[in-house]
């Protein structure tokens, strides 16, 4: 997948988001070994120190873990992965609801619209 960085947002937090997405979507599978910091940095076109910092943060969030000599791996903990999905879903809902509120929809309007939309796509 392509790395695309937006202006004016710290790159390390954008890396965290992208890596989180890759883990949540299964592009990196549970237990899979991650590429080295240098390879990831080259691929993304970013400073290796920045990549290192982002991976350290992912480690702190327990999405990845490192083994002393063999490198970094994606977590196998199902609770962590489940939590990650919930967190991402919540974030997307927030963004989505935020936009709809801006065009004047109430919580109920949104819920109705979602229900109708789901029925539409089923049909």
């Amino acid at each position, binding site marked *: 997948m392509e790395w695309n*960085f937006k*202006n*004016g*947002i*710290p*790159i*390390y937090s954008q890396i965290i988001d992208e890596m989180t997405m890759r883990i949540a979507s299964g592009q990196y599978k549970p237990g899979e070994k991650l590429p080295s910091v*240098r390879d990831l*940095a*080259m691929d*993304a*076109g*970013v*400073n*290796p*120190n*920045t990549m290192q910092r982002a991976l350290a943060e992912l480690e702190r969030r327990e999405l990845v873990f490192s083994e002393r000599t063999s490198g970094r791996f994606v977590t196998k903990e199902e609770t962590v992965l489940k939590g990650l999905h919930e967190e991402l879903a919540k974030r997307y809902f927030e963004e989505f609801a935020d936009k709809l509120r801006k065009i004047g929809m109430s919580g109920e309007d949104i819920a109705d619209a979602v229900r109708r939309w789901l029925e539409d796509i089923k049909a």
Partner: protein
Amino acid sequence: MAIIEINNLTKEFGSLTALDCVALKLEKGQIVGLLGPNGSGKTTLIKILNGLLTPTAGNVTIDGMAPGVETKKIVAYLPDRNALPDYMTTDKLIGLYEDFFTDFNRAKAEQMIDDLGIDRNQVLKKMSKGTKEKLQLCLVMAREAEVYLLDEPIGGVDPATRDYILRTIISNYNQDAVVLISTHLIADIESVLDDVVFIKEGRVVLHKTAEEIREEKGESVDQLFREVFRC
């Protein structure tokens, strides 16, 4: 520990003050952007670090030493213009670098030269401007130096080569080396920078990490540059 120290450095050319009391410390393990508009003093500073110019006042040290024979062993320098004999072929130039620099890694140079499709038997004189620049950069980056001083490394090359060069800088990165890149093409390189130094009319007006700039100001380094140096 700072590997490059610049103390109250001033350089005058007659009545022109090119550098005005510049003080900087650069640490190992960093990729630093020396950013400023044309004529702000970037090349003068890099030339002083290479011992090609002498300061009017103040001093610089590299790994504790004044610029000279000893520092040239650990400094890989890409000048702002061609400094190689132009009658030599690529292969001869590889040989020249190998003779001059004990830290030169021939295999690495050959790899880069082949990746960029540079003809090994062509003489420098016959190469296009961009190819000359690429070749010089390959030779410089193939050294396993402690300090890389790159004066406008991406100015004359196409975007695809630019990406290759940046990837080369990243892959070459190591904890014990510092890379100083002077340029005004900020958008292209800002994602690889640790530290950013803005230089304006011979003075350092800002020295921060690139991430600090994005975090504190919500701006890219490029945007901030355009603000600071608005004409």
